C-alpha cells in the first residue's frame, strides 16, 4: 500500500532548485557554481506534499510523476510563510474534504467541532460537558487577556491592546505589527497544509465568511505558543514586521509545525456521531476504507453504492 497523507506526514520544502524528471526519477538539481550541479532524488512515492519555495522551476514531466504518485504540490513563500497555489493530484483521497463538508453542513456536528477546537486550546481546563459556545468564547477571551498581560509583564511593557484596524497600521506599536506579520506567516503554512489534505480553506467552524475561515480556525490553535511570544519578544524592534517574518523563516519554525497541523486537523475532523458508533462494524481506518479504486455513487438511504454497475435492470 502506498503511503498517503494519513499515515505519512512527509512534507518536503525546496527552494532555489530546478526540479526535473530524468531517466530514473524526479530530482532536484542544485546549482553549486558554474561548473557543478548536485542532484537530490526525491522519494516521490513516499512523499505526501512537496512545498515549492521561491526560485524553484519544475518541469511538466516532474509534475506528472508527482501527480501520479499522489503527491500534492503547493507553491509557497520563503520558508512556507505564504501559500499561493495548490496542485492536487487526481488520486488524492476526498475523505477529509467529505468529512469537513458533512460536519460543516450539520449544525450539531459543526458545533461539536467548534467546541473541540476551543477544548484543544484549553487542554488543562476541566470543561463541563454542557458548556455552550457562548461560554467558551467568553473563556477564550479571558484567557487571551490573561496571556497578553503575562507576556506584557514579562517584557516590561505596559498595557497591551490588540489592534486589528488596518487603517491605523502605521501608528501601531511594534507588538501589534509583529503579531500581524507573524500571524500572516502562520496562515500561510496552515493554508499549505489544508491544501495538501485537499480541504477547503473557506469552510470554517468557528470563523465564517472569508476564503480563509478554516485557516483562521486552525491558526488559533497555535497562536498562543507561536506567534504571540514571538511578537512580544519584538516589542523594541525597529522593524517588527520584517523581523517577525525572518525569525519564522530562518529557523524554519513553521515547517516543523506542519506534521502537527495535519494531525490536529485530522483529529478534529474525525467525528463519529454517537448514534452511528455502534453499527460501525468495520474496524478499518476510515481513510483506508475510503481509498476506493473506482468512484462511489451516493445514495441517501444506503450511503455509498459501487459504481461501474448498471442499475437499469429493476426499472424496465
Amino acid at each position, binding site marked *: 500500500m502506498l503511503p498517503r497523507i494519513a499515515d*505519512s506526514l512527509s512534507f518536503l*520544502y525546496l527552494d532555489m532548485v530546478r526540479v526535473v524528471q530524468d531517466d530514473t526519477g524526479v530530482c532536484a538539481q542544485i546549482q553549486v557554481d558554474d561548473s557543478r550541479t548536485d*542532484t*537530490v*532524488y526525491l522519494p516521490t512515492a513516499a512523499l505526501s506534499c512537496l512545498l515549492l519555495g521561491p526560485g524553484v522551476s519544475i518541469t511538466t514531466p516532474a509534475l506528472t510523476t508527482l501527480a501520479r504518485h499522489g503527491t500534492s504540490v503547493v507553491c509557497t513563500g520563503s520558508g512556507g510563510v505564504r501559500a499561493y497555489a495548490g496542485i492536487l493530484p487526481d488520486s488524492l483521497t476526498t475523505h477529509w474534504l467529505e468529512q469537513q463538508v458533512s460536519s460543516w453542513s450539520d449544525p450539531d456536528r459543526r458545533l461539536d467541532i467548534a467546541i473541540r477546537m476551543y477544548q484543544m486550546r484549553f487542554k488543562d481546563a476541566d470543561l463541563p460537558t454542557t458548556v455552550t459556545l457562548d461560554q467558551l468564547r467568553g473563556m477564550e477571551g479571558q484567557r487571551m487577556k490573561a496571556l497578553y498581560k503575562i507576556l506584557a509583564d514579562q517584557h516590561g511593557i505596559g498595557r497591551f491592546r490588540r489592534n486589528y484596524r488596518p487603517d491605523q497600521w502605521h501608528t501601531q506599536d511594534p507588538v501589534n505589527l509583529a503579531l500581524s506579520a507573524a500571524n500572516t506567516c502562520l496562515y500561510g503554512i496552515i493554508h499549505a497544509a489544508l491544501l495538501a489534505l485537499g480541504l477547503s480553506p473557506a469552510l470554517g467552524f468557528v470563523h465564517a465568511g472569508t476564503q480563509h475561515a478554516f485557516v483562521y480556525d486552525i491558526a488559533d490553535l497555535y497562536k498562543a505558543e507561536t506567534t504571540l511570544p514571538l511578537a512580544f519578544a519584538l516589542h523594541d524592534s525597529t522593524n517588527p514586521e520584517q523581523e517577525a517574518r525572518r525569525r519564522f523563516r530562518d529557523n524554519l519554525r513553521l515547517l516543523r509545525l506542519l506534521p502537527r497541523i495535519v494531525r490536529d486537523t485530522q483529529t478534529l475532523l474525525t467525528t463519529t456521531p454517537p448514534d452511528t458508533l455502534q453499527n460501525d462494524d468495520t474496524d478499518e481506518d476510515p481513510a483506508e476504507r475510503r481509498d476506493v479504486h473506482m468512484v462511489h455513487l451516493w445514495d441517501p438511504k444506503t450511503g455509498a453504492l459501487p459504481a461501474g454497475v448498471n442499475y437499469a435492470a429493476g426499472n424496465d
Partner: protein
Amino acid sequence: MPSMVVIATTAVPDHLRGALSRWTSEVVPGIFVGSISARVRDELWRAVTDTVGNGAAVLVHPAATEQGYTIRTAGTRRRLPVDFDGLTLIRMTAAAKAKETQSPS
C-alpha cells in the same frame, strides 16, 4: 534491546572488517548486517570512524524519525546525506566539469 543495523563499507582496512564480522554477517562484500544493541552499535561505529582512513562507511539503523531510520557516515564520498527539516535525502555531489579547453576559433 537489539535492533537491526546495516553497515556498508568501501575500502576500509582488513582489521576493521574483522571487527565488524565479529558482530555482524557480511552478506555481500563490504555490507554488514546484524542485530545488535545500541551500545554495541555505537562502539562499532566508533571503531569504524577511527580507522576509516581514506575509505568510507555508512551506518543505517532504526530511529524514531518520520522515516523510521537514521543514517550516519564516515569518510567522504560523492553521496552526502542532507537533512531537509527532518527528512533525510541523499545529495549527489557532482564532479566539477573540466573547463572548456578549446581555444575560441
